């Protein structure tokens, strides 16, 4: 597997443009802040300290810029609306958390410069006989809030370190809410005004005003989140699937979504503060909204227990899906925030799509496949001509989750060949199971494992080969008869672990040619 190199990744046109903007804006602000202080004759007393004052002021301005930006990429409700506008073509909104991290790195860098410069400043303030050093550090607003912000940063950055986050997401999540106090300190950081002329005229950069804008926008975001999540929501049905998967169907009138989007779920009975993302598995035409939850962590297991999906032993041995509850009372209240965009919602803009799901990563495609079925039934037109669905699964029991859906889809085959299922089983099978499959496979018209007409494959798919074959059949005209002139768009959508994502991306690049455009999209988790 050839991975893309550091150079190829960071110097891709879009990324390069961002880096130029990003570094350029910081360097520009630094220089501006630096010389505005240096060339101000009325600040001569302060300027007698020298280089460290100018540096701290320049870095301070960059920090104001970063602090007003840092909250914007985490406004998921606002981003959701912006995603629908023309801005979506200019700004990759799905990379919001990546941008959040870049701002954080810049913030850390300038914090270090700002702080070290101030350590020298305050030392020299005493040498000049203005104030004793320790009073500047611990008795002024600027000093105290600064030290407090440093402490908060130590806690936030260490708990956000990836292994920490993987180990305990909750710790990261709760610690990150220290940002409230961080922002509060930031707004008062310039209070008491340290930058004065000889006549005691204050000359600040008013950086708190810019930081306050970001804070206010984020505040509205949180209010919006609260209002939306508090609208009436009611669980209508809970289905326990094999492999410890639960399907929760609920009813929320105010909830609008597109296939392939995800939502945030909060169950007050388990935790008042935790919000967990889940992909929506129903289609907008369904009477209900459904999500599939696999019990793997603390929260999901607690949810399973709460909904009564687990026996005393905690594990289900049954292999069939069971409706656990469909009474309206006796079920816990849930709160739902969403729906949020994911790249998979653009599926319907392609002529040919290849959907690749791994294990539970099939969920966004369940919604899309359902939507295809509804579109076909209600004869609504879309660009879509062919759908290739790949589901890579470890074991047979996992098939049961969506088996009924897949069967319904297959039975309702629209044009022949419109929808192709390719199911891959990667687990090593027992000898007896193989024998069983061989016996049943020869005689039956349905696959012995999935009960579908398409046969199950064993092992992993070779996507390089798959794309090659696809290219050939499109070029020969067999694949898309009566096709208009012009290039064909093939969308590859993937949801699953990262290693296969890289493989797919490379395969997409290799397979691309002037007539057929392969575009790769990946779900973010």
């Amino acid at each position: 597997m050839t991975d893309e190199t550091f150079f190829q990744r960071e110097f891709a046109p879009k990324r390069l443009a961002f880096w130029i903007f990003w570094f350029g804006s910081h360097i520009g602000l630094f220089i501006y802040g630096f010389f505005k202080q240096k060339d101000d004759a009325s600040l001569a007393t302060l300027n007698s300290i020298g280089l460290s004052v100018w540096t701290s002021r320049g870095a301070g301005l960059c920090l104001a810029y970063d602090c007003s930006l840092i909250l914007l990429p985490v406004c998921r409700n606002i981003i959701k609306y912006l995603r629908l506008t023309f801005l979506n073509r200019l700004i990759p909104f799905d990379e919001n958390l990546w941008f959040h991290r870049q701002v954080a790195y810049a913030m850390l860098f300038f914090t270090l410069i700002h702080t070290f410069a101030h350590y020298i400043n305050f030392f020299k303030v005493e040498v000049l006989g203005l104030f004793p050093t320790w009073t500047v550090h611990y008795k002024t607003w600027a000093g105290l809030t600064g030290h407090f912000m440093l402490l908060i940063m130590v806690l936030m950055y260490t708990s956000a370190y990836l292994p920490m986050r993987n180990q305990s997401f909750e710790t990261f999540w709760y610690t990150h809410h220290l940002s409230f106090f961080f922002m509060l300190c930031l707004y008062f950081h310039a209070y008491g005004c340290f930058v004065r002329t000889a006549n005691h005229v204050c000359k600040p950069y008013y950086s708190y005003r810019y930081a306050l804008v970001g804070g206010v926008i984020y505040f509205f975001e949180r209010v919006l989140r609260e209002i939306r999540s508090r609208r009436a929501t009611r669980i209508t049905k809970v289905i326990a699937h094999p492999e410890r998967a639960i399907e929760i169907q609920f009813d929320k009138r105010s909830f609008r979504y597109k296939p392939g989007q995800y939502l945030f779920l909060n169950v007050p009975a388990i935790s008042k503060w935790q919000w967990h993302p889940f992909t929506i598995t129903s289609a907008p035409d369904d009477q209900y909204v459904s999500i599939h939850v696999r019990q793997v962590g603390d929260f999901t297991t607690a949810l399973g227990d709460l909904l009564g999906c687990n026996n005393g032993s905690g594990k289900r041995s049954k292999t069939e899906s069971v409706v656990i509850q469909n009474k309206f009372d006796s079920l816990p209240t849930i709160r739902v925030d969403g729906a949020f965009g994911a790249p998979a919602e653009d599926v319907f803009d392609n002529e040919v799509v290849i959907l690749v799901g791994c294990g539970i990563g099939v969920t966004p495609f369940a919604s899309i496949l359902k939507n295809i079925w509804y579109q076909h039934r209600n004869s609504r037109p879309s660009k879509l001509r062919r759908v290739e669905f790949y589901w890579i699964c470890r074991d047979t029991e996992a098939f049961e989750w969506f088996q009924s859906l897949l069967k319904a889809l297959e039975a309702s085959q629209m044009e022949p060949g419109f929808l192709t299922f390719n199911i891959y089983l990667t687990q090593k099978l027992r000898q007896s199971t193989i024998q069983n499959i061989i016996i049943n496979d020869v005689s039956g018209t349905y696959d012995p494992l999935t009960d579908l007409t398409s046969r199950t494959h064993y092992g992993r798919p070779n996507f390089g080969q798959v794309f090659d074959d696809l290219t050939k059949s499109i070029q020969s005209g067999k694949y898309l008869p009566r096709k208009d002139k012009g290039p064909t768009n093939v969308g590859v959508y993937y949801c699953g672990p990262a290693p296969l994502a890289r493989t797919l991306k490379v395969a997409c690049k290799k397979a691309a040619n002037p007539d057929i455009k392969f575009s790769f999209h990946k779900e973010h988790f």
Partner: protein
Amino acid sequence: MGKVVWSQWANLIAIVAGVFEVVGGVFGLFYRLSMWEQVTSIFNAFVIPINVIAIVCIVFGLAILAIEVPLPLFKGSFFTRTYVPRIVLYTIFAAVSFIDYQNVNPGLYMYISCLMYTIALAKGENKVAPKETRGLKV
């Protein structure tokens, strides 16, 4: 999605403290000041004209990094096998650091790290060194 491993967090904070201890020490060589000069003059002799405390702090910082990263030399040694030696060491390191003007904050972080290591001890995390628990589910 597991429980927080306190020693893992303490480890990271100790690394931060170690880095700032070294950097603060280097700055301390050039800008010599005792944090307590307003209160008492007994520390002044250690700080001016040569900042002995700062030099000691640099050594401390490097020692912290050697224990926390850890250096191959220290791997599995007395210092890294349990958390008790670090808690004792860092408490002393921090107390000394507080004398130097630039090393007050690293000292504070060391105390936080000590506190977290103590919680880790209380929760019985001592069986595994923090390096080995990284990324594992406990």
